[in-house]
């Protein structure tokens, strides 16, 4: 019964979240903290902070945390399935429709212009992330190295992620960090 409530609550959060990330906080606050009382606001912020610095989508990480707290391991799994369920249904329908209409001239024109908007949105996202991510000279150097290499060479992002994790450790231990 608890698992069903978990699934439905997180499916609701999934439906009401547009864009993910920070857009999700007020919705989680209302559903998880106020309505269900599964976690306090402070706990939610903790989960959120950890969710941001672990791999994967933040919404999923937060759902897994809360699900685990409410109903152990099965809870973590069920809450996650709940939060992704609406996406799978809605996107499958839209993708199916778009595939059928993709050749219409109006649809083509619309998406050509939308692509411009997507570039602007990515640019804005990078600017927003920049403040929290690049805090000193060593960070700037890491940024530049990864940026240039990934732009001009065909290297898997996995390689950069692993090397930068190691660099973070080494730079901190050797005291280069913060200069």
């Amino acid at each position: 019964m608890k698992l069903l409530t978990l699934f439905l609550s997180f499916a609701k959060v999934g439906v009401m979240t547009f864009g993910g990330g920070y857009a999700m906080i007020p919705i989680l606050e209302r559903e998880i903290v106020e309505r269900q009382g599964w976690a306090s606001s402070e706990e939610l912020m903790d989960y959120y902070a950890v969710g941001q610095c672990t791999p994967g989508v933040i919404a999923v990480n937060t759902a897994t945390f809360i699900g685990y707290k409410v109903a152990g391991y099965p809870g973590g799994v069920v809450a996650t399935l709940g939060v992704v369920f609406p996406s799978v249904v809605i996107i499958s329908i839209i993708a199916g429709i778009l595939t059928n209409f993709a050749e219409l001239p109006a649809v083509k024109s619309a998406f050509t212009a939308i692509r411009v908007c997507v570039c602007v949105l990515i640019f804005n996202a990078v600017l927003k992330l920049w403040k929290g991510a690049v805090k000193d000279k060593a960070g700037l150097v890491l940024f530049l190295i990864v940026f240039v290499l990934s732009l001009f060479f065909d290297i898997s992002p996995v390689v950069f992620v692993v090397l930068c994790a190691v660099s973070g450790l080494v730079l901190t231990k050797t005291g280069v960090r913060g200069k």
Partner: protein
Amino acid sequence: MILIRLFWEFFKTGLFAVGGGMATLPFLYDMSARTGWFTEAKLADMIAVSESTPGPIGINMATYVGFETAGVPGAVIATLGLVCPSIIIILMIARVLKQFRDSKTVDAVFYGLRPCSIALIAAAGLLVARITFLNMDALAGGFVLLNLFRWKEVLLAAVLLVMTRAVRPLKKLHPIVFIALSALVGILAGF
């Protein structure tokens, strides 16, 4: 088996994409180049649809790629692949949450990971920008700088940049508003 490959590709993405939905973009870009499952232009369309439909953007993109590649089973498998590493990692951390938050090692690792994550997003964004703003065919018939840019697109980008960054009441609006506006401009101005 396409479904097994889909699962594996998205499992890797879920394991290594740090910092939320947009962080999956460089991995999807890499996937498009290696597998040919979808084109770069299609990837930009998928971002637009993912931003303007309910659900976390990272999940929406995985579902969309999965659907494009192998229909509804693909959509389900790609999404499960993406969330699998998260579930495993978070369930391991959940028991030692406090130690994890206070760990100096974790902090050091993420000190290196954050600049990496945003550099990857920026580079992938620039590659999307290249196909959006540049006329690569124009170079074939002799180099004319004026023909290299798609001016309508550049103009629209300038307007959107001003609206999303400089005009106060507009800045706060949800991205979906700007996506809808762009679609309308695209249809009316015949992009």
